């Protein structure tokens, strides 16, 4: 169906189901309960899940398939963001032209960067991409201040031209919208103790992510995808089989740059501002972590990795010592203090420590990422099932 094999179609259906029902799934705990802080079903975070999902899906087309580890992908995200906000400032606050321009500009920039960096492979390629990203960051931060707004970045302003939009009615502000639907508008549904928020911006981002995921599946299964895996497997054989690996890797690089640009454009669509820190090297590193944590080279892995990291960043970082003391209040005083002191470094600002430990455990014990973990669990169940079946077969 949709040109996909049955297995891939099932996967797509699962992703569609999860993203569309995310406001329910991510809010399992009633409002006001002690566990409510683990709820992730609020628009801001859900938007980040899908936007970083897109970023990681695109990164995986390059890294997962060809094995070229780019350490500068945040540059394309940032370039896409700047392109989108200029579209919104100059032409219209509708998000669609902004996203299209973000993809085009990021793609063109990726073509330039890829053309230069893909002359080298391995660690040299990684360093070259990192250098490009840091140069872009420095340019955005200071040199190109007239275009990028420098340190403060860019926001929508009342006196932006917006040549296609009608003038704002007094007191109104320019807002990102889709044909009049405001990105920040939400519908809240209260059921019992639960509060579910359905946000227009989230659903638009989610639909874009589903499309991006669908396109990634098609690329993975296409002859082009096969050639990209050939690049990773054995470039020598590839060249001696009459295939020119350069344009293949460059195409993969540009496609993943366009995905990053789309993610950058969506960030602007959701929250109409950009700053240069979006292109900092830690942002490039983050998408590498997401992809490896989820499972590089797998379809769903990068999305899982992005979700996991963004969840930890937003949820674990919010736990503070007061909350810990509440949790362990049932313990005797001395023990309570001790337990809180032990856990404290891993929460709040220390969430990176937790992430680092999880990342190390995954890389050491599950080199295939969370997807491999899932497969192993599924494998255990299957083995158990087959064992049950064999045991129930009567002996002959």
């Amino acid at each position, binding site marked *: 169906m949709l*040109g*996909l*094999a049955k297995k891939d179609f099932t996967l797509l259906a699962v992703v569609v189901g999860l993203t569309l029902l995310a406001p329910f799934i991510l809010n399992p705990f009633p409002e006001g309960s002690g566990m409510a802080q683990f709820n992730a079903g609020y628009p801001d975070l859900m938007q980040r899940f899908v936007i970083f999902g897109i970023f990681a899906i695109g990164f995986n087309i390059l890294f997962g398939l060809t094995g070229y580890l780019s350490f500068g992908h945040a540059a394309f995200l940032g370039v896409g963001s700047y392109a989108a906000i200029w579209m919104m400032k100059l032409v219209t606050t509708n998000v669609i032209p902004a996203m299209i321009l973000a993809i085009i500009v990021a793609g063109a920039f990726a073509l330039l960067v890829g053309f230069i960096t893909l002359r080298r492979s391995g660690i040299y390629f990684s360093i070259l991409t990192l250098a490009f990203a840091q140069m872009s960051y420095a340019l955005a931060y200071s040199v190109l201040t007239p275009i990028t707004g420098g340190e403060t970045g860019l926001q929508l302003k009342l006196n932006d031209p917006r040549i296609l939009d009608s003038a704002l009615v007094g007191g109104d502000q320019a807002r990102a919208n889709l044909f009049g639907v405001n990105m920040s508008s939400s519908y809240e549904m209260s059921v019992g103790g639960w509060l579910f928020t359905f946000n227009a911006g989230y659903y638009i981002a989610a639909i874009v992510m589903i499309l991006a995921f669908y396109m990634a599946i*098609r*690329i993975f*299964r*296409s*002859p*082009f*995808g*096969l*050639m990209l*895996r*050939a690049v*990773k*497997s*054995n470039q*020598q*054989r*590839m*060249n*001696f*089989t*009459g*295939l*020119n690996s350069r*344009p*293949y890797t460059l*195409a993969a690089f540009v496609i993943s740059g366009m995905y990053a640009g789309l993610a950058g454009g969506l960030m602007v669509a959701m929250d109409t501002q950009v700053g240069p820190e979006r292109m900092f090297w830690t942002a490039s590193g983050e998408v590498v972590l997401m992809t490896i944590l989820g499972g590089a080279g797998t379809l769903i892995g990068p999305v899982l990795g992005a979700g996991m990291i963004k969840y930890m960043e937003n949820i674990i970082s919010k736990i503070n010592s007061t909350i810990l003391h509440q949790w362990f209040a049932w313990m005797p005083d001395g023990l309570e203090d001790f337990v809180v002191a032990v856990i404290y470094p891993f929460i709040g600002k220390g969430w990176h420590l937790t992430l680092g430990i999880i990342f190390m455990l995954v890389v050491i014990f599950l080199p295939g990422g969370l997807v491999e973990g899932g497969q192993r669990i599924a494998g255990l169940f299957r083995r158990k099932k087959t064992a049950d079946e064999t045991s129930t077969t009567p002996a002959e």
Partner: protein
Amino acid sequence: MGILEVKNVGKRFGGLQALSEVELNVAENSCHAIIGPNGAGKSTLLNCFVGKLIPDTGSVMFDGQSVLGRKPYEINQMGISRVFQTPEIFSDLTVQENMMIACFAKRDGAFRMHAVRDMFTEKEIVDKAEAMLEDMNLADKREMHAASMSRGDKRRLEIAMCLSQDPRLLLLDEPTAGMARADTNNTIDLLKQIKDERDITIAIIEHDMHVVFSLADRITVLAQGTPLVEDNPENIKGHPKVREAYLGEAA
């Protein structure tokens, strides 16, 4: 006039003159073996044919066109396929995918962007790959990862990939190196079969005299970077210069 004509080829690596004044003429539809002791420059010469090395002097013409200065993939697209000493295959991919890559390369050339349709909907390619796997007795291994096959099967797969491109010249670099006797004999049979059934020219580098004398129509003996003699196998066997090159002057 041969399909591969090598004239006055010389190559120097620093102080080492690896090849000098190499003349070689491989006749179409023959099997030409290049033999010689270790360090004679056999592999260097082969690398000059496929774009891995560019000789300092001389010319290498394939079917009337120079191959010098061309990229390996361009030379392959001209009709030269190479089998490596250690099988070079796509180890992470399945046997079937390995074959399909070779078939795509033959049909679509060095680069073509087709990123939309599922690769298995390309019936022509799937069928061609399958037919080749059947031919080479690899059909039952099609789902296997290439890395997990035996050395002999890897070699078969590599040869199958080369053949699926219908090359006019097949270059073999010690195809039986490191193989068990049984695998070696299988490979000899396979190569004989290929030679008999196809319009193909084979140039082979080999240490194993058993392999050389079972296959070659013509033999060139290389020593210290220069061709010593070129003749048919019968005459090479007892040639005093060959014995000298292999066994030293005392013999």
